[in-house]
């Protein structure tokens, strides 16, 4: 019966080609525009590490004088001071925690084949890779000893390994960072995420770093931050040592806490830690303030999904509503004109439910066609987005989920729009039309 209805819908579409084309175009455009903004929204708001996003916590401490404000909603600075980052890192609990900071190097291979280039790098703890699910292809992270001794070791990603060594196992080979030799000890997979959630300082959708070095090198090589450094009071910072001892915020800190109990223990620890620091005269505070935010709370707190994007998604759904009102009107006209034919079918024994089903199948076919064309329009729209804003190039794509969502939304929307016309037409009384024939 379904096949028969499909056949009927196809015939019906072909009988009024102009109106059918108009309806399909309306849905396609509506879906195309909606899916363009929805895809970007979907990519922006996607959980970057779904299986442990509720176990990774970003640490914020308020180590400013009472009454000082910050640009955040709760007046907590985004980052930590060097003193605090080191104290938290050297504490026994939890097992996995790490500070990290964006820096960078000029890279060369001490040969004329590779032109020197500038590359961003992440200075971090050895736990970083395990915490953020960055798997090793070859080698492993640096050892505790290498970390303590600030050994010149480096982990690079596959993409860089491809560029410098043609993709072969380069563990044990040398690379020159700022004209000093480093040994490659590990190669990690390329990071397949869109949101740089572990460091939102310089834009949430920037590229991930390709080089990782032990954080202890920041001190021994006096590496400067490529991220943000913020102060809150006047400090005479002249040397790198001043910088390390200052109250400036420039380091991100993450902790992995697996259970609510662990989170409780860590909260208690941070509370004790902060009250202890307050007694050392670093800052004047009565109330202890800190925050542990998991990945999704952290993204939300940093407004990763932009306002413009929310406005666009809202507008495009209103736009879709207009398209629906449009096809509802057209469908109504089209179905009602067919009332005599329906009258005959009813007289020949078709039940109301069958007529209703037949018309719903017809609108679904419209929806499906519109949805498919809509995907095409959305691809065009996303291409436009990528052209306009290269920063969004990883975001302005449709994943499988969105590809399936497009026809689903189209069919759903058409069925909603078709309910009333189909209901109206199935109520046709056969007698009237038989009389006038």
């Amino acid at each position, binding site marked *: 019966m379904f096949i028969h209805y499909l056949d009927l819908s196809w015939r019906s579409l072909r009988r009024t080609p102009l109106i059918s084309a108009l309806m399909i175009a309306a849905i396609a455009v509506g879906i195309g525009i909606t899916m363009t903004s929805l895809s970007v929204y979907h990519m922006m708001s996607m959980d970057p590490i779904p299986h442990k996003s509720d176990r990774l916590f970003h640490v914020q401490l308020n180590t400013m004088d009472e009454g000082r404000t910050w640009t955040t909603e709760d007046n907590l600075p985004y980052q930590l001071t060097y003193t605090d980052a080191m104290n938290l890192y050297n504490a026994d609990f939890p097992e996995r925690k790490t500070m990290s900071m964006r820096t960078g190097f000029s890279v060369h291979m001490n040969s004329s084949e590779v032109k020197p280039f500038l590359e961003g790098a992440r200075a971090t703890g050895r736990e970083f890779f395990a915490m953020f699910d960055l798997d090793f292809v070859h080698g492993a992270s640096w050892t505790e000893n290498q970390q303590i001794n600030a050994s010149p070791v480096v982990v690079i990603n596959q993409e860089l390994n491809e560029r410098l060594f043609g993709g072969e196992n380069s563990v044990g080979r040398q690379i020159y960072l700022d004209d000093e030799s480093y040994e490659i000890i590990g190669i990690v997979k390329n990071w397949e995420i869109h949101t740089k959630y572990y460091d939102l300082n310089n834009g949430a959708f920037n590229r991930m770093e390709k080089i990782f070095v032990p954080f202890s090198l920041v001190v021994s090589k006096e590496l400067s931050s490529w991220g943000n450094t913020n102060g809150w009071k006047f400090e005479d910072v002249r040397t790198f040592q001043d910088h390390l001892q200052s109250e400036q915020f420039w380091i991100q800190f993450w902790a992995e806490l697996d259970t609510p109990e662990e989170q409780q223990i860590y909260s208690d620890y941070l509370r004790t830690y902060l009250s202890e620091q307050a007694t050392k005269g670093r800052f004047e505070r009565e109330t202890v303030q800190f925050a542990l935010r998991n990945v999704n709370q952290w993204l939300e707190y940093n407004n990763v999904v932009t306002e413009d994007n929310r406005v666009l998604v809202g507008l495009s759904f209103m736009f879709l509503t207009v398209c629906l009102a449009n096809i*509802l*009107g057209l469908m109504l006209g089209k179905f009602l004109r067919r009332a005599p034919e329906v009258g005959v079918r009813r007289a020949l024994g078709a039940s109301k439910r069958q007529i209703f089903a037949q018309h719903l199948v017809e609108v679904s076919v419209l929806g499906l066609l519109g949805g498919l064309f809509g995907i095409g329009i959305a691809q065009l729209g996303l291409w436009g987005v990528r052209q306009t804003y290269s920063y969004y190039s990883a975001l302005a794509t449709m994943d499988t989920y969105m590809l399936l969502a497009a026809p689903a939304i189209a069919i759903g929307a058409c069925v909603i729009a078709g309910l009333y016309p189909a209901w109206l037409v199935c109520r046709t009384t056969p007698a009237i039309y038989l009389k006038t024939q």
Partner: protein
Amino acid sequence: MLEIKPIFNAMRRSKVGAFMLLIQIAITTAIVSNAAFIIYDRLQYLQQETGYPEDEIFHFAVLTFGKDRNLSQQFEETETTLRNLPGVINAAAIQEVPLSGSGSASSFGINPTTEQGREGLEVTAAYTFGDEHAIDTLGVKIIAGRNFEQDEVIVAENNDVMPNVSIVSQSFLDEIYPNGDGLGQTIYLGDMPMTIVGVVDKMKGPWLRASIADNFLIIPFVSADNFQRMVVRTEASQRAAVMRQIEDTLLAEYDKRVIVGLQGLDESKREYNASDILMLRMLVVLITVLVLITALGIFGLTVFNINKRTRQIGTRRALGARKSDIVRYFIVENSMICIAGLLIGSIAAVYMGQALLELYSLPALDHNYVAITAAFVFVVSILSVLIPANRAAKISPSVATRSI
């Protein structure tokens, strides 16, 4: 005269179709007026004067990793090399490039900061270090005072000796010395005093979107660092050619360095504003298509109504109605729906504007936009009804008699 009553009665018999049209027009009005307003707002922002001849300027950074060079001389040599390139007007060492979205800001006061804080007026402004060529290279004009003297530019590896003069934008000067006597006065960056020696009428800082976009200072200092940013001004027509030879020319001079971030100033600005340009384009596409869809909807519905009423129209024609009467009938019918839709849509637009204002940092909707949009939608709806209505007017009176 306009036969509103019979038309209204006829409409009541196909309520839903009319109602759908009304909804479409209402939503269209609401969206288009708000979107048009956002578009206007962004356009104003994107087209504002920055003070710089953006298409003549480009910038890049030199990262020196070789350790055998005297960095406090190298930037001078680089500048000379650049000035010798054909087409180059001037070149300067600069710490932060305006309009690029990356820079430094601080509060400046009329008193120094001490351990106890600062007394008196404080104004936040972006600033950059640069040498005596920065003003000319950026293409901005000093309207009062003078440029830096060469010996006022401090070239140093640390910040033990700091400069004691600066050139500021007019807008910053008006804010920190509101009485208009700022030129020659002293301002403090932290505890470092600087005399204002020159004023530039307009030069935007690194962040166009910031509230302090107009507050910008140039401080004569060059940090002899292994990372040195350069800014170059050329003839607009020759910029691309000059940019192409930068890397080779500079590496030929000394090759233990990397040239990064070679970019025109207009391109940097476009990158910083890319999200606004994107929003602008999306909204333009959205409202264009929306108006088109609504027009097609009106067109389609009128075609249907005409088909449904072919016989009725024939009868009216047979009874003596003129062609213009038929056209008028459809126009009046459409206008009635349209005006109702526009009324509802205008109210919705105002509410939507308020919601956007409350939820997001968008400016308050200018009600003129609602009025103009309503008028525009009305004209579009009339136009889209005209074609089918004219076709209806051609229905011959014989149709009415033939089919009975």
